[in-house]
Every structure is written in C-alpha cells, then in structure tokens.
C-alpha cells in the first residue's frame, strides 16, 4: 500500500481477527489525569512508537511521555543564519560588485545601510523554517492516517483521551499490550487496522 510510490510499512506479523494488518492498539481514557498517568506507565514500560491524543494540549504531557526536546529551534536558527547570509551577500554583490555607486561618499561595501534588509530577510527565512519545519517534523501534510478510520478516535477532538501503541514497536505484544492498557484504567481498548 505505497503512497506516491513510497514503500509501505514493514509487516510486523500482527493481524486482526478479520485478517487485516494491525496498525496498533487504541485505548480510550475518560479524562486528562487518567491519560496522563497511563502515559507515564507506557513510558516506563519502554515503548517508543506510541502517542497520546487529546482535545487540547495537556500540560506536562511531554515529560509524562518521556519526549525528547524538539529539533525545531535548531532548524529555525539555520533559517535565520541562511537569511542573514543571503541578505548580506545579495546587497554586497549589488552595491560593491555589480553596480558600484558612490552614495554620500561612503565606501561601496558600507554595511550600515544593509541592516534593515538583513533583519527582514533573517526574520522571513526564520518564519518559513519555523512553519515548514514544524509541518515536516510532524509528517504533515499527509493524505490519511489509519486512526481516522476509527469512529471512536473521532471523539478525541471532543471529550475523549486516547493512547495509541503502534504494532511496529519492538515491545508490542498483541493481547498482552491490550491487557496492560486495560490495567491502566482504559475505558475501552480496540485494535486499529492499517
């Protein structure tokens, strides 16, 4: 099931009773405190490919999930440095190389008049890299996601809280993982097909 010719996910061997490939196990929780403490337990169990879905950002959920800090600020810093460099090179080339012109007796390559353009281009490139970098790190935009097939998952944008452990995780153990999630206070657990 490749998209745009990209290879599909490797088959990990887990099947639903109907024979479909399992994307993962979805556990529903009634409130943010329940999902928060379940996330701490999933983190401590050593899972890697899993995520928490909630109708709003839950404070501190990144620590509860053991997430590493995002690389986004580095990408934005790269955008800023690129923008500043491009702006300086462009203006230096225009005023000192391509069309040298004496303005008020100043040196051809006087940098002072370049400051506004350098600042603006630095901000422009930083803003682009912040937006595009965020989307790219999140794997967006994408056509579809297996979770969107689940009726239960849709309530995540309303009043339910969900943890999904993907079948591709090295620690994923089928029905044992389902039992583990039920033991954490999940009100419903279901398999999601790929």
């Amino acid at each position: 099931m490749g998209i745009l010719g990209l290879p599909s996910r490797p088959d990990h061997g887990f099947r639903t009773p109907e024979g479909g490939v399992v994307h993962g196990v979805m556990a529903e929780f009634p409130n943010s405190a329940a999902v928060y403490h379940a996330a701490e337990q999933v983190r401590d169990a050593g899972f890697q490919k899993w995520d928490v879905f909630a109708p709003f950002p839950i404070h501190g959920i990144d620590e509860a999930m053991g997430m590493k800090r995002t690389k986004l600020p580095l990408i934005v810093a790269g955008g800023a440095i690129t923008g500043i460099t491009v702006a300086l090179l462009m203006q230096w080339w225009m005023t000192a190389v391509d069309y040298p012109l004496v303005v008020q007796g100043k040196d051809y390559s006087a940098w002072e008049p370049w400051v506004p353009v350098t600042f603006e281009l630095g901000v422009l490139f930083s803003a682009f890299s912040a937006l595009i970098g965020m989307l790219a790190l999140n794997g967006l935009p994408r056509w579809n996601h297996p979770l969107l097939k689940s009726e239960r998952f849709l309530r995540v944008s309303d009043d339910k809280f969900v943890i999904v452990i993907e079948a591709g995780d090295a620690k994923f153990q089928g029905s044992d993982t389902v039992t583990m999630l039920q033991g954490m206070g999940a009100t419903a657990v279901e398999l999601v097909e790929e």
Partner: protein
Amino acid sequence: MRYEKAYILLAGLSTPLVLSVHSIVSFDFATSILPGWHTTIFPPYFVAGAVFGGFAMVLFLLIPCRELFPNMKDLLTLRHLENMSKILLVTGMLVGFAYSMEFFIAWYSGNDFEYSVFAFNRALPTWMHEDGAPYWWAYWTMISCNVLSPQLFWVKSLRRNPVVIWIVALLVTIGMWFERFVIIVTSLHRAFMPGEWHMFYPTWVDILTFVGSCGIFMTLFLLFLRFLPIFPIAEIKAILPEADPHGHGDHGHGHGHNQAHGPGSGGVGHGESTIDSTTEEEGH
C-alpha cells in the same frame, strides 16, 4: 510540542517586526529634508503611536462585539479591558512625550527651519498671533484626543466602564488620524518656499479613498467574525483546569472535578480533598 514550539518561535519573530515595520515607515519621512519630517525621534515615536492606535482600534471594535455576541463577556472580561486601558494610558503619555520632544529639539537643535515650523506652524492659533498656524485646530484635536482623553483612565471606575473606554478609544482613533494629518499636511503646506505656501483641500478622490478604506476594513472585519474563530476553542481549552492534570504549582485550585474518579486516575496529592468536591469549591 513542535506546534507549541513553532507557535512561540513565530511569536518571538513577529515581536521585533513591530519595531522594524514602524521605524522603517518613519524613515520614509525622516530621510527627507522637509522641516517637520526630518526628525530623529520618528522611529520610536511611530512605534509608540502604532501600539497606542492599535490598542485603541482593537478596543473600539471589541467592545461592541462583546456586547453583541452571547457569552463573549465570559472570555473577554472586564479585567482584559481594564488592562488594555492601562496600556492606552501609558502609550498615550509616551506619544505625548514624543510630541513635546519635537518642540524641545526644534529649539535645542538651533535649526531655523525646524524652529519656525514648530514655533509658528503647528500649535500657535491664528487668533493669538498673525503668523500663527492655519491648522492649529488639527494640532489641538490631536493633543486633546491622544494625550488628554486617556488621562481619564487614572480613575479606576472609568477604566472599568466599557462605555467610557469605547468613547476614549474612538477619540484616540480620531486623534491618531489627526496625527498623520498634522505630520503630512501641515508640514507640506508650508515648506521652504513661501511662494508655494497653500492650504490643503481634499478632492473627491481623497475623500472617497478614505471612505472606501473604512468600508473594506469593516467588510473584512465582519467576514472575519463570521467565518474565522474569534476565540480558538482549542487554545481556550488548554487553560482549563482539566488541561493541567498533575497540578504544577497552584495546588488544589480547580482540580476538584477531574480528580474525583477513584484510585486509577487519582491526582498527585489531591486524593483526600477531592472526594467531596463541593467542599473544596467553597474553600476558594
């Protein structure tokens, strides 16, 4: 997490843009040699004026919205209006300081042309002096709207009264229009050559451009109210007590309901107090 990081980075990037946009707009005036425009105070003066005029315009639009939309008062509270009024008071005085510094520098710089513009061509009424400023009324409208009217906000009951805030915001919007009029028209109508001195009479094109710009602004504003979220609910939800399950700081405040779900979801350190959440509510 990436979304929130991108959000805060973009916010950080756009904040200095407020300064750069308005200072560079002011350079359009300041780099010319026209007395009244050729002024080094313009960049900070324009930034202060932009914050001032912007807050006034936002209050001018939001206060009617707040009355007309059901439940909007729960989200845009009187405390928000009061704090915005304080910003108007502060930036109004910053702008007033800039107005007075223009006069000081006109005298202190020793520049004859600058001095004559500010001594005779801005504030001095024609009925007080034969060489007075024909546009003295524009200057004093600007001063009374921008510097004097926000002084009402020293009184707490006035800065907590939406009607008073709305009237002051309207006056400030008028005053900021006259600020641009004073800078552009009064400086241009009497430049270096007395032979070309003249009064400004707007043509029908000038007037209709102004009317049309108000019209297109209101059209876009109403379309915004109709089609885009005035309050993004996903962001409002993030400040609910429910969104802070482990209670960083501020313990016991508002956690009563979401903690009362038994041991499986028990809150950190709230276990006892949450069994009877009504008792806890009364404690606040």
